């Protein structure tokens, strides 16, 4: 089945992963800018990173028939130093001109600090100034509930259309509020610390399949770039028809991402849908 992995950090993955994803049916990915596992020492390092996201990765992906898109920002884990963060933010507008940029992301909070909040609000304003969509990172573990609410409040205070924002890494205690407030929701499938494929299917069964997607968020840590098709297998194992996986991993991502003029729906998406 053709599918989109709408959140994966391919700069941290090997070319073999592109091959395996293509063989599993992946036709497009979107790659948010995030933490590299260490703090970068200068804004120039981010300029190189943004060049990698806008020039290098699209070519690596294209070699395997995968469309590559990205989101740009200073991530919340490197936002505690506002002076440094603002120097990085100043780099972003020039890179927004690249063909594969979908918006600002993944912005958000990590420890829910005052400085993180200030940089989040400034990047929300940046998105508004440039009419960009937003992809939101929410904190993990004990900080998620508070961070998700603070982020949604900041977006509301900035009068951002929630239909153009995806709140990522939702779990059972945040998904209802995210959807109720009109945002899109992303579930991240991780071997440790986040949602498992089983729990993701539970959440879909409990909260429905509208304005929601799944992603691998594969990166440099313990993660699985094939977790999206593995979640499809979990749906099948429970007796859900193939239309559910297509809805979650193809039609929903296309509906959300098509709000950006940079996004071109993959041709495989035009294939007939099999009814459940």
């Amino acid at each position: 089945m053709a599918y989109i992995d709408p959140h994966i950090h391919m700069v941290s993955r090997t070319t073999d992963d592109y091959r395996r994803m293509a063989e599993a049916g992946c036709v497009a990915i979107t790659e948010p800018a995030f933490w590299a596992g260490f703090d970068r020492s200068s804004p120039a390092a981010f300029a190189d990173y943004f060049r990698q996201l806008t020039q290098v990765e699209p070519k690596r992906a294209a070699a395997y028939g995968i469309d590559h898109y990205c989101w740009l920002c200073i991530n919340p884990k490197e936002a505690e130093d506002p002076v440094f963060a603002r120097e990085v933010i100043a780099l972003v507008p020039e890179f927004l001109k690249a063909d594969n940029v979908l918006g600002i992301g993944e912005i958000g909070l990590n420890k829910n600090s005052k400085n993180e909040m200030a940089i989040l609000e400034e990047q929300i304003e940046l998105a508004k100034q440039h009419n960009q969509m937003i992809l939101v990172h929410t904190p993990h573990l004990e900080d998620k509930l508070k961070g998700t609410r603070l982020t949604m409040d900041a977006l509301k205070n900035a009068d951002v259309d929630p239909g153009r924002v995806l709140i990522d890494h939702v779990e059972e205690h945040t998904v209802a509020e995210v959807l109720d407030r009109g945002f899109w929701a992303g579930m991240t499938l991780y071997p440790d610390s986040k949602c498992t494929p089983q729990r993701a299917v539970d959440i879909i069964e409990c909260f429905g399949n509208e304005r929601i997607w799944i992603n691998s968020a594969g990166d440099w840590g313990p993660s699985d770039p094939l977790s999206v098709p593995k979640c499809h297998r979990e749906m099948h194992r429970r007796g859900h028809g193939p239309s559910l996986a297509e809805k979650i991993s193809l039609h929903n991502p296309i509906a959300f991402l098509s709000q950006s003029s940079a996004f071109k729906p993959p041709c495989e998406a035009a294939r007939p849908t099999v009814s459940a």
Partner: protein
Amino acid sequence: MPSPTCPLDVGKTVDLYFMEHRAKLLDIAAFLDRLDRSSGGPADDVRIRALKQVIPLLIDGQGNRTQRILERLSDHTSEPIPAAHTKAAIGVDPHGDY
């Protein structure tokens, strides 16, 4: 009880998932036994207090167990903290009443 949204009937759900979750339950039991056999270090850890507090939610007869456990382990304050001194989270609210 919640409305039935999982296509599997009860028997098939048990057949499909029981062994996996039996093993996970034994992992938790072995972890707690391992703690009993450990020596030195802090005698009390907020993470273990929190874990032991939420385990009864598994068998209290109410639904939404995952959501209620996640909420119990969450920071419920609403104001940003003054500064982030670490990037890491520990998995439970360090100031929680456990």
